[in-house]
């Protein structure tokens, strides 16, 4: 029973991270119909930014809470700047081009950012400082849920609730939904569609960076390549839940996390990725648009 609970907690934690990254994929897809393959790299850049800031602040002896907050904010802002810039230089000039062109541009951006970090930082794994302390009150349950699991789950929950409120109730949230549904009409109402798209990239990138910080601190090391697998998994989560759907991304992420956790826990950890992608294939056979997605006629 305890093992079962441990697997559930582990699965939810994984799922929360997948969901955080998947939100960026799904929001961008919802608004411009593009799969932003460079999104995993934004997550990686977020982790590296957090690493640099956190290490520096730790050396200067700042208290842990301050280190976490400053590193988190810096990672979010820096990654958002990258997300914004990527959209400006790699996707915006291709607006109105055939759908394949921005897709190829996105893959190119992904390679570029990976190699850029490889050259600017290092090819090796670097140790990420432990930013999350052990909580005393978790001591009796430490074999089921760790401190970083709890922090990841709580942070993700807060971020999701905030995002939902922004999208549902604020003017910019409504403008994002309006643009996703009918961008020509949004233009006719005076909505600056390009700005809405930029804001979508900024929000998605900041979420990915927060995910990057949480995972890096959980696992304890990062390198330039971590964005690849995380990106693919989160993309699978977004597709699983129905790409374009925000609740779908969260649901897809959680399902994927739990599947991996149970698969590795009860069967074999060698097949971790097999479980994830088998689930994806299985669901797409029966629900091609994903769990919460709407069936559409033509999408790449």
């Amino acid at each position, binding site marked *: 029973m305890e093992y079962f609970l441990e697997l559930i907690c582990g699965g939810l934690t994984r799922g929360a991270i997948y969901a955080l990254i998947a939100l960026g994929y799904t929001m961008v897809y919802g608004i411009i119909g593009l799969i932003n393959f460079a999104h995993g790299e934004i997550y990686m850049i977020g982790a590296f930014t957090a690493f640099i800031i956190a290490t520096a602040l730790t050396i200067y002896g700042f208290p842990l809470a301050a280190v976490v907050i400053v590193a988190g904010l810096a990672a979010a802002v820096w990654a958002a700047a990258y997300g914004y810039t990527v959209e400006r230089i790699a996707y915006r000039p291709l607006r109105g081009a055939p759908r394949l062109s921005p897709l190829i541009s996105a893959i190119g951006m992904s390679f570029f950012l990976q190699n850029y970090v490889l050259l600017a930082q290092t090819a090796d794994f670097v140790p990420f400082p432990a930013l999350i302390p052990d909580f005393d009150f978790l001591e009796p349950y430490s074999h089921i849920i760790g401190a970083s699991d709890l922090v990841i789950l709580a942070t993700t929950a807060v971020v999701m609730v905030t995002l939902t409120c922004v999208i549902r109730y604020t*003017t910019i949230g*409504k*403008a994002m*939904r*309006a643009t996703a*549904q*009918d961008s*020509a*009409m*949004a*233009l*006719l*109402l*005076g*909505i*600056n569609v390009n700005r809405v798209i930029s804001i979508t990239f900024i929000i998605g990138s900041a979420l990915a960076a927060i995910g990057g910080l949480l995972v890096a601190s959980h696992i304890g090391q990062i390198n330039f390549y971590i964005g690849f697998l995380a990106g693919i998994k989160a993309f699978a989560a977004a597709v699983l839940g129905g790409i374009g759907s925000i609740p779908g991304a969260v649901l897809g992420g959680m399902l994927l996390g739990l599947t991996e956790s149970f698969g590795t826990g009860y069967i074999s950890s060698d097949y971790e990725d097999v479980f994830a992608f088998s689930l994806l294939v299985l669901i797409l056979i029966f629900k091609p648009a994903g769990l919460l997605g709407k069936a559409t006629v033509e999408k790449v």
Partner: protein
Amino acid sequence: MLRLEHVRAGYGNILAIKDISLVISEGEIVTLIGANGAGKSTTLMTISGLVPCRGGKILLNGREIQGEAPDNIVRLGLSQVPEGRHIFPLLTVKENLDMGAFLRRDKDGVKRDLEFVYTLFPILEKRQRQHGGALSGGEQQMLAMSRALMARPKMLLLDEPSMGLAPLLIKQIFAIIERLNRERGTTIFLVEQNARKALRVAHRGYVLENGEIIVTGTGRELAANEKVQSAYLGM
């Protein structure tokens, strides 16, 4: 108020409008009639800045607006209700109206205008929490017009407001158009296939054929014109 001088525009290699010159003065209702594919909608989209102007000038109160971003054109007081209404299907009626007021910062004014459109179309207030996509065609047309009014435009561009509506609803929509013009002084540029109805409410009209203006005159003159009668009024 709005003046088009030898405007040309189109999509890709096709020039949908070849040479359009027209004038709309403040407080007027002017209609543009023509057959399917004559270039009516392209004319409106060019004015709104969604289709690039390939030649000529578009002047709003003496200021050239061709090449301006669409949001700046809305800011200058020009709102369009496009053909087919383009309601945001998954936004509620109220949210659709909020989007109409997207550029406005005067909260009190927006609130007053919301009350105004609810008095024009009480059904919208009843349905304010429903999704736009759940409305009937007539209600969607009312919502589309109300949404444009939420920007408090000085001039309203209406593209086929009667399309696909029952006769009674058409009558109601045209009555509202006249009322807006009379009570609020909103200048109206009306594109219609329903030429008979359009010429009855319009002060003046232009007839568009293959991307060019072929006749112009007052509503009554055009309704009496033989060519217009045979081509557009089925007489």
